[in-house]
């Protein structure tokens, strides 16, 4: 090719330059548009790209006892979560976490299920990681990009098993619970009350979770907190004040024999507040914090002593002799008996009614007794006759009015109602026969188709300790207190009943050995006939300073305890003694009852009184 003329070359050069200039000019315009004109939009997107709000869990409200002592509070714990990502990478991350957290395959599937339900929320894998786990995870941060460690408050119950049944426990919200209307607004991973007070006052205790802005990278790894934009701090749950006495609960936990199953309910005579609610065997609610280990859970559920079963409010037992006071109260109220009146048939170890001989528990017999002495000796023959005077239908009517067929209405999520025949139709429905008057004999001494919870019995004795009326037992200190029902008794009649109870703890009474040095103790032993095994032991106690109004009601039930006077009464007496000593500043002494004085050989000059 010949050399071109310079002007031709110049023209071509100009053409090439023009094309180049157009192309570069296009780029320049494009960059000007995106970097100068619309920069703000892209800047915002860049931030939303990398900034992500994360929930900040709110600490649960502190639970205080009546003295302002802390029953449940929070301590810092660590949770392990995964940030939102495609399901595949969530699954992979879970498998990577498996050896470190020790989670099972089933748990992984469960978590994936939860994740599919809410794919945009961070997935909580472990809500209470140990310090070792946290450090192991921090070391492997590179390999586990989506893992997100977070400090979250965790529940602590310093008294442990002493407050188990009263507090209930907390746990992670389940997939089913998330669907329920009462958990609207809750998110996966939320810690909610599952039982007891924790569940009852969940809405108060929960608080409102806050948000925290974190910076994440393209793979969802949290890079750190972002300081440019502040989140919303969490609002802690409201503190609640209970009527419980923490020291008393711990005392009961200490004195209740480990080998025995039973229940202790202590009520404040003043306002009906629950001072103690203890079911044995108990469980440590701390075990549930951060998810209970499966083996502990299966131990708890398979144990035949049923530690998760709250005997104070759910357990129903034949009320036995303590219920004779109900017969007496109904008799006095209906005016079918006067305090000093003797029954026509004196006790000779039993009474013939119809074609059957009804025995007294004392084969030697009690002779002719006044009402107070009949209570003192728990004479069956007296109460058979009193029952007959009242009559079956009136006894059922009045018993129902007092509420033996209903729940007490305590502020706990679960409570059993008593079993008490509403009317004579009960027998026909259950067993298909019309009841005869003979049924009233069993009912009058607390046997027959009558089962009561320890809580219900405590409420009944509360009425006896007060002016004949009793509010519903309640745990929240400032909750509304309703006068639930009244025995409709005049003060004189009540005093007669109390005198009877007082004599039970006097020389010759069934609970004399449980009498106390400093306090006026009233009580009633009971031995509930148990068709399934050894008898259940009852003791219902009322106690207070001498010559003053009573201050505490304690009901103790010991399953298969056989003897109310030997197993249940000492527990009740020691509970009342401890409470009153604390209240009046008398030093605590483990030698409390008369029997304990005798056993350690300490003189008990007050016992002769």
């Amino acid at each position, binding site marked *: 090719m010949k050399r071109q003329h310079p002007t031709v070359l110049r023209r071509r*050069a100009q053409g090439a330059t023009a094309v*180049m200039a157009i*192309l570069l000019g296009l780029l320049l315009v494009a*960059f000007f548009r995106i970097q*100068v004109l619309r*920069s703000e939009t*892209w800047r915002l997107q860049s931030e939303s790209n990398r900034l992500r709000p994360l929930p900040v869990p709110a600490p649960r409200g502190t639970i205080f006892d009546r003295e302002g002592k802390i029953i449940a509070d929070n301590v810092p714990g660590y949770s392990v979560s995964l940030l939102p990502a495609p399901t595949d990478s969530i699954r992979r991350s879970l498998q990577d976490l498996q050896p470190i957290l020790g989670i099972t395959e089933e748990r992984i599937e469960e978590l994936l299920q939860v994740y599919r339900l809410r794919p945009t929320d961070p997935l909580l894998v472990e809500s209470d990681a140990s310090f070792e786990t946290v450090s192991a995870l921090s070391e492997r941060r590179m390999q586990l990009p989506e893992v997100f460690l977070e400090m979250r408050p965790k529940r602590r119950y310093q008294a442990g098993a002493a407050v188990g049944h009263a507090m209930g426990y907390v746990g992670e919200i389940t997939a089913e619970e998330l669907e329920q209307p009462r958990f609207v607004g809750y998110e996966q991973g939320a810690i909610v009350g599952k039982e007891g007070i924790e569940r009852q006052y969940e809405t108060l205790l929960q608080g409102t979770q806050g948000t925290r802005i974190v910076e994440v*990278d*393209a793979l969802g790894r949290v890079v750190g907190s972002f300081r440019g934009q502040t989140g919303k701090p969490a609002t802690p749950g409201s503190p609640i004040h209970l009527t419980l006495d923490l020291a008393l609960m711990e005392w009961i936990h200490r004195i209740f024999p480990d080998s025995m199953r039973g229940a202790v309910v202590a009520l404040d005579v003043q306002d009906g507040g629950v001072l103690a609610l203890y079911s044995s065997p108990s469980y440590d609610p701390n075990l549930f914090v951060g998810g209970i280990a499966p083996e502990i859970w299966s131990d708890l559920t398979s144990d035949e002593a049923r530690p998760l079963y709250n005997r104070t409010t759910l357990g129903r037992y034949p009320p036995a002799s303590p219920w004779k006071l109900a017969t007496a109260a109904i008799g006095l109220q209906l005016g079918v008996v006067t305090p000093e009146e003797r029954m026509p048939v004196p006790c000779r170890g039993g009474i013939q009614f119809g074609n059957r001989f009804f025995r007294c528990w004392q084969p030697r017999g009690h002779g002719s007794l006044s009402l107070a002495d009949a209570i003192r000796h728990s004479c069956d023959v007296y109460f058979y006759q009193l029952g007959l005077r009242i009559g079956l239908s009136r006894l059922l009517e009045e018993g129902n009015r007092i509420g033996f067929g209903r729940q007490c209405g305590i502020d706990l999520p679960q409570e059993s109602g008593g079993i008490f025949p509403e009317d004579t139709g009960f027998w026909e429905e259950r067993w298909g026969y019309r009841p005869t008057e003979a049924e009233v004999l069993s009912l009058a001494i607390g046997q027959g188709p009558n089962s009561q919870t320890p809580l219900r019995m405590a409420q009944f004795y509360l009425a006896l300790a007060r002016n004949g009326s009793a509010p519903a037992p309640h745990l929240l200190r400032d909750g509304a207190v309703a006068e639930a029902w009244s025995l409709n008794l005049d003060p004189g009649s009540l005093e007669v009943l109390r005198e009877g109870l007082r004599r039970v703890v006097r020389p010759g009474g069934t609970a004399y050995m449980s009498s106390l040095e400093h306090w006026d103790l009233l009580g009633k032993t009971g031995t509930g006939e148990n068709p399934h095994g050894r008898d259940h032991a009852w003791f219902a106690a009322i106690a207070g300073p001498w010559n003053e109004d009573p201050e505490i009601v304690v009901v103790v039930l010991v399953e298969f305890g056989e003897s109310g006077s030997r197993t249940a009464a000492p527990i009740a007496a020691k509970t009342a003694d401890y409470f009153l000593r604390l209240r009046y500043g008398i030093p605590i002494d483990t030698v409390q009852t008369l029997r304990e004085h005798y056993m350690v050989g300490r003189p008990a000059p007050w016992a002769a009184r």
Partner: protein
Amino acid sequence: MTRLVARWMGDPPLVSGLLLLSLLGIAVIYSAGVVNVPSPVVSSAWQRQLIWFAIALAAFTAVSRVPLRWLEWASLPSYVVAVILLAATLVVGTGRGTAQGVKSWISVGGFGFQPAEVAKLATILALARILAARSEEPRNLRDVLAPVALVCLPLGLVVLQPDLGTALAFVGILFTVLYWAGTPVLFLVLLASPGLGLILSFNTWLWSAYMLAMVGLVYLHRYRLYLVESLSVIIANLAAGTVALPLWRSLATYQRNRLLVFLDPGVDPRGAGWHLIQSKVAIGSGGITGKGFTLGTQKRLAFLPEQHTDFIFSVIGEELGFLGTSLLLLGFGLVLFRLIRLAERAPDPFAGLVLLGIFGAWVVHIFVNIGMTVGLVPITGIPLPLVSYGGTFLLMTWVAAALAVRLAGED
């Protein structure tokens, strides 16, 4: 001393521009490695690039002293060798890094290189050689058949790899060299028309209008064209429109997605649109002054794809802002302008054609690479000359620069 450096450079304006761009490239590759969760491969890339830079400078020194006769003599054999290598790549080639599916690498004893980079230069030389050997400028379409065939052979092989980006560079080479050889612009338009028709065929109405315009164009120039030429142009356009659909179907899904996403990045924001959206977010959030060297958050947090190779310009946009991008565009503009200037003053037609060929390849690389980061061009895996990480590419860019300097400096 200054004279010595100037003599080494051969053409100080061009070479100092290239040096500055290369150093900036290494700095940005370093920055691309500064991320929150660093990967060893990317964070040490700048060191490897520095070594390659030294090698490239050595090659520049050597090649810029090669006797010119050798170059002309070697142009055709080197073309043949390059084509053979490209063909071999299809058989023994391997993918690398993120482009695993693309067979563009040949490994020789643990040392890999991309034959396509060599082929570009060889094709420029061969093309310049045969066009310079002609006594006349191309006067009709038949005259350009041989050059077209010469380019289409390596181009076809590159498309088969498949590496659409590099293929575009061959197209750039063909057109700029033909243009410089004096081919009438009309012919170039007619030559390009089937390609344009292919693109427009996605819309029947648009394509029909385009075909009418083509017929009109041919009719207007009926006295300059042979009937055969006119007919073949029309037939080629019709054929392009017809094969468009089967061709589209034959594309890999990712390639189709890239084209679709170019039209609307929102169609698949988490998948194929991801690269483009994240790149635009990075560049746009850089604003006028940028977030500062090594401080780009999009880059740091791994939102940017291929940040040290194909999307390195996004890092520049995010960290250095509009000031940085416009300065860099200006730098590239000056280098390209200098190439044109050298071609204009070239001592013989061969030198001018080679310079324009290099210009053509670089223009395509620069425009397509930078254009795709802002969505001006569909995303194709094509590196930015001198700045993107890549050994063979940097080396060949400097070898091309050496050729340019050598050819332009000859008297």
